[in-house]
């Protein structure tokens, strides 16, 4: 069941995705500071190895659910950064026609069942999507991303219990970034190793260094293959760290001195660059990848800027798929 090794080009592809996420977020933070983005942002900077590693082997028909920190997952699933920026800008061409914003971006056709403003909110949805994938019997899977904080929610418990009981094709990916909003992990749960929670559901639980994208990819592929083969769900605890605050603007003063620096030394992009260099990829090639990403994001921002603002009347549209007589929306 162990995966085939990735080619050098495939690894460069992972690098490209990670750079795309990193730069998408840094640009978004900057654009928000400049006043172009009206709502909240919860940047994924520092955690790129998890989204990219987990999504590397997903196929068409597989679906994922995400969190408030969802841009990375959405980009890793192949979303268009232009439509994402358009949504952040609250414009008509945004993924949600300017009715969702960062916390609610969604593209079901892409297999992205949504970021989520509710901690733990995506876990039951992924479980249900997994149930439907099992019913369809085509070997497709659902992946649920969530943080360490979400593992204290009832939705986590109810969903993992159900998924294990019914052997659903779901991969639960806990991105343990060691903070539930502003509260460090040791103050919000009495255990250090979240993967152990899998034991209570008779589920496979595994810990992985989330900043090593290739390790994440190995572990995730094994879980996905098990799910495809009908062998049931897995709980993956990917240990990682967010370089920025809980949301853009949070100064993260709750961090002990030196902690961020330790993690910066293990930056997922830096680790993969190092690996690629040892495999003979030159600096020029990496620079070429980075330049390509900048160009793409430049275009994406331009697309968002050019997209029209919604018209006030659009606020009354799309409440229902089907409206009926007597259904005053005003």
């Amino acid at each position, binding site marked *: 069941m162990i995966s085939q090794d990735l080619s050098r080009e495939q690894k460069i592809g992972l690098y490209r995705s990670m750079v795309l996420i990193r730069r998408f977020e840094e640009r978004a933070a900057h654009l928000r500071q400049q006043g172009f983005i009206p709502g909240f942002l919860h940047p994924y900077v520092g955690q790129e190895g998890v989204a990219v590693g987990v999504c590397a082997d997903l196929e068409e028909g597989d679906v994922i659910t995400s969190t408030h920190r969802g841009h990375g997952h959405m980009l890793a699933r192949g979303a268009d950064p232009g439509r994402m920026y358009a949504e952040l800008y609250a414009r008509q061409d945004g993924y949600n026609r*300017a*009715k969702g914003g960062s916390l609610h971006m969604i593209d079901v056709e892409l297999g992205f069942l949504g970021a989520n403003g*509710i901690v733990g909110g995506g876990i039951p*949805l992924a479980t249900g999507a997994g*149930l439907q994938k099992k019913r369809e019997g085509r070997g497709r899977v659902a992946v649920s991303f969530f943080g360490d904080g979400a593992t204290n929610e009832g939705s986590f418990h*109810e969903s993992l219990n159900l998924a294990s009981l019914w052997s659903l094709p779901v991969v639960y990916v806990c991105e343990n970034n060691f903070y539930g909003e502003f509260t460090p992990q040791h103050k919000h749960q009495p255990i250090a190793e979240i993967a152990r929670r899998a034991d209570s559901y008779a589920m496979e639980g595994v810990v992985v260094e989330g900043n090593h994208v290739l390790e994440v990819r190995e572990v995730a592929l094994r879980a996905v293959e098990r799910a495809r083969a009908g062998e049931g769900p897995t709980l993956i605890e990917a240990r990682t760290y967010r370089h920025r605050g809980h949301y853009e603007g949070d100064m993260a003063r709750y961090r002990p001195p030196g902690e961020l620096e330790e993690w910066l030394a293990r930056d997922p992009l830096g680790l993969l660059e190092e690996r690629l260099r040892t495999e003979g990829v030159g600096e020029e090639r990496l620079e070429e990848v980075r330049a390509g990403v900048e160009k793409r994001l430049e275009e994406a921002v331009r697309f968002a800027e050019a997209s029209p603002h919604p018209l006030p009347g659009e606020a009354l549209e799309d409440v229902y*798929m089907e409206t009926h007589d007597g259904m005053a929306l005003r």
Partner: protein
Amino acid sequence: MRRLRYGAAIGEALSEEMERDPDVFLIGEDIGEAGGVFGVTRGLQRRFGPDRVYDTPISEEGIVGAAVGAALVGARPVVEVMFGDFVTLAMDMLVNQAAKTCYMTGGRIGVPVTVRMVTGTAGATAGQHSQSLEAWFVHTPGIKVVAPSTAGDAKALMKAAIRDPDPVMVFEHKLLYGRADPVPDQVEPLPLGVGRVVREGEDVTVVSYLHTLHAALEAAESLEDEGISVEVLDPRTLVPFDRGLLSSSLRKTGRLVVAHEAPGRGGMGAEIAAMAAEEMWDCLRAPVVRVCGTNTPMPYAPELEGFVIPDAGRIAEGIRATVRQPAARRQSF
């Protein structure tokens, strides 16, 4: 025409819709082998198999969330929430997730999930097994709310709810399960938002639904001897609401009484009264009267429960009160 019980009619609707559409499945606590606490799904698991009728752990958020998640990727699940009170445990999945999906995707996808809930009192069922929570969902844009009062409507509306592309909450009253009504052999889905004149009258319009509708009919009969002619409307669905039916009735009677079991404060009756005041003011000849549950939790003792819930006697009093009001003379400005 055959007579069919309300519970059995719902069971038939579920069965026929599962027969018709393989994407429909049932999920809930003890609905399979046991057939549900009120027997509505009895025999369906045996007939359709455990992959169409799922017995679940007691995990309301997990179950409703799973149904919503499955609906996002092509299923048409029907969830049974054993007692409507337990829907409180699944509110995130309904209010924050299912209700918002269509809107927040800019109308690109809907959540075709049906949530069946047992509502109201059945005698000494007390505070956590008796509530009428429909107003919460009426208040939540993105959700449709259905409240059938007869067996035929229950079957027709359940079919419509299952085929509807949006989340639909169906409130089934405990005391109606045993009620039998004439039901045709073939029942087509009833479009949502179409109410019904249950009884014609001239002097006053009473709007009511679920079990209270039958108390309202009883009140209407009893007032005939007093020379008060009562029209009774059953909206059948609360969202959408048949405004046309209400206004045409008020145009005739000019007086409105709303009766329901849920507490009056912030309830459906308040919404209907506001609708009449805002949109049908020129029809009204007297203040609107609400006959509702008291603004209390549901007590256990049967005599206290009887005090809290409106019965035919209280509805009749409400009707008398509005009819006694002198018709207001409208001045034109």
